[in-house]
């Protein structure tokens, strides 16, 4: 292959690039642009922090101004909640009311002649558990409360009492009295009276009534 006579006198450092993008020019430009970008970014951050600081101070002032109104609003809300709870409990008690009057009015017509009532009592519910003074209970915690009716009296023998017992199991009374029983030893002689009346017996009836439902 033919080789040319190429006596090159150019030094390596004199060989320049024809590209308009030159590293020794672009490097300072890029450095300057990078520094400028960082400065802009930093100034944006500072401006945003300043704006957020102003916003925070404004919000703190607004909170301070609204605090008394907020406190009173919270108190009103608590009072409203207490009142609502009380009303609710009262509504429960209203719904749980057991009506004895009509039943007792009918009972007078069905009492046998040989039976004289000496006691007609609805025992009070069991006492509530000890209350926490910090959080007092407004009503019973159990939504269902058992209700009993105790009938006691005098009679001449078991038959009138059994008749009364059967009467209490008729539909006229079953809407209130769900069950009734004559406890053992319910009949006994009335020792407190004179001898002429020694044939008089004391009796006792226990009735299970419809429960009180606090709903």
């Amino acid at each position, binding site marked *: *292959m*033919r*080789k*040319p*006579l*190429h*006596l*090159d*006198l*150019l*030094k*390596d450092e*004199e*060989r*320049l*690039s*024809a*590209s*308009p993008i*030159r590293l020794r*020019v672009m490097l300072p430009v890029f450095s300057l642009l990078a520094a400028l970008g960082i400065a802009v970014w930093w100034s944006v951050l500072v401006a945003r922090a300043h704006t957020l600081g102003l916003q925070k101070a404004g919000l703190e002032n607004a909170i301070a101004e609204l605090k008394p109104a907020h406190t009173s609003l919270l108190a009103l809300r608590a009072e409203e909640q207490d009142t609502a709870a009380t009303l609710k409990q009262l509504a429960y008690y209203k719904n749980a009311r057991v009506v004895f009057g009509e039943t007792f009015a009918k009972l007078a017509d069905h009492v046998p002649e040989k039976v004289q009532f000496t006691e007609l009592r609805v025992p009070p519910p069991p006492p509530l558990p000890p209350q926490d003074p910090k959080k007092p209970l407004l009503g019973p915690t159990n939504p269902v409360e058992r209700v009993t009716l105790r009938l006691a009296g005098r009679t001449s023998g078991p038959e009138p009492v059994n008749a009364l017992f059967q009467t209490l199991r008729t539909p006229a009374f079953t809407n209130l009295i769900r069950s009734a029983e004559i406890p053992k030893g319910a009949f006994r002689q009335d020792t407190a009276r004179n001898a002429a009346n020694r044939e008089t017996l004391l009796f006792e009836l226990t009735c299970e009534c419809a429960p009180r439902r606090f709903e």
Partner: protein
Amino acid sequence: MALILLQVPLMKPGSLTVKLSSQRKPFTDIVGLEVGAGLSEGVPAVRLRKREGAIEMLAAGFLKLPDELPETAESAQHANPMWLLPGPFQAPHAALAVSSKQSFLRHAAGSGDETPDKRQSAFRIASRTATPDLPPLVAGLPEFQAAWAARLLPEGRRPTACSLQLSSAAALNGLTAAPAFLSAGGNAAALFVFPEYTALAAFQESSLVLYREHPVGYVHLRSALSTQMGIDIALADSVLDDTLIDPTPIIEPVLRPLFRQVEISADFLSRRRNCKATNFFLCGLPAGASYWSTVFSHMMNMPLLVCPTFDGVQRAQRPTPKHGALAPLTKAGEQLLMAAYGAARAVLEDE
């Protein structure tokens, strides 16, 4: 077929500087520019492109650019011209061929010791050995001129310098690729005519075996014609190209010493290297080639063939608008582009 065998000489203390091309990637598009030619036409410029192994010419012409070479280091420091080339010549890279009176191109003397020129002034030197039995060919250019020429083409614009050569060395590459030279079988002698001197280069089996410069150039012929015929210098070329007036009696005394040196060199080659020169070529002469051939034939009894600069070079078939159309060149103008063409060709073929 190897035309010139290049070898790197062995490094010795004080030996000539070895300059290897640091080109990493083969160049494919080069514009050759001749700096310091001082032509009234402008700066010679030739753009070549290598495509699919073949070299084609994209543009050639003369550019109006400041190319006055500084004569001293002080003037080189103060003169900083910047060359911006027109679009058709904006190749990626440029090969600069420098014409300087202070440069030298010659075979190294003896063992290649430091030349007197190098001692007197800082010279940038490159050398190549064509054949092992011949002293290397040494090119030297003052450092300040080389540095000044390297700064001509600014960075970041097309083209930038990729090669810096002497015009005399660059011109050799134009001939060695010509079909006329190749058909001669590689045994030929060529006269490269420059304004101030004429170089004789002899090739044996396509290897450069002799290079001599003689201080007779075409400027001397013009001066002789102007003086003896009483005409303007500008008209001298017209007389040389015209056949109405035979200037042979005037130019023969100027050319005879030159051709006598050619005769001596041919005899030297015949005796010392057993190389009989039978083909003579004439390159770079803008006017009067026929008279040169006539005088040469009378003296040497051999024909002197004119070798066109762009002989065998393909022109770009369809130049793109970017490359521009090739402006028509006269034969004289084509000869003046010899160094620029050779510089570009050397870079394209130096892989």
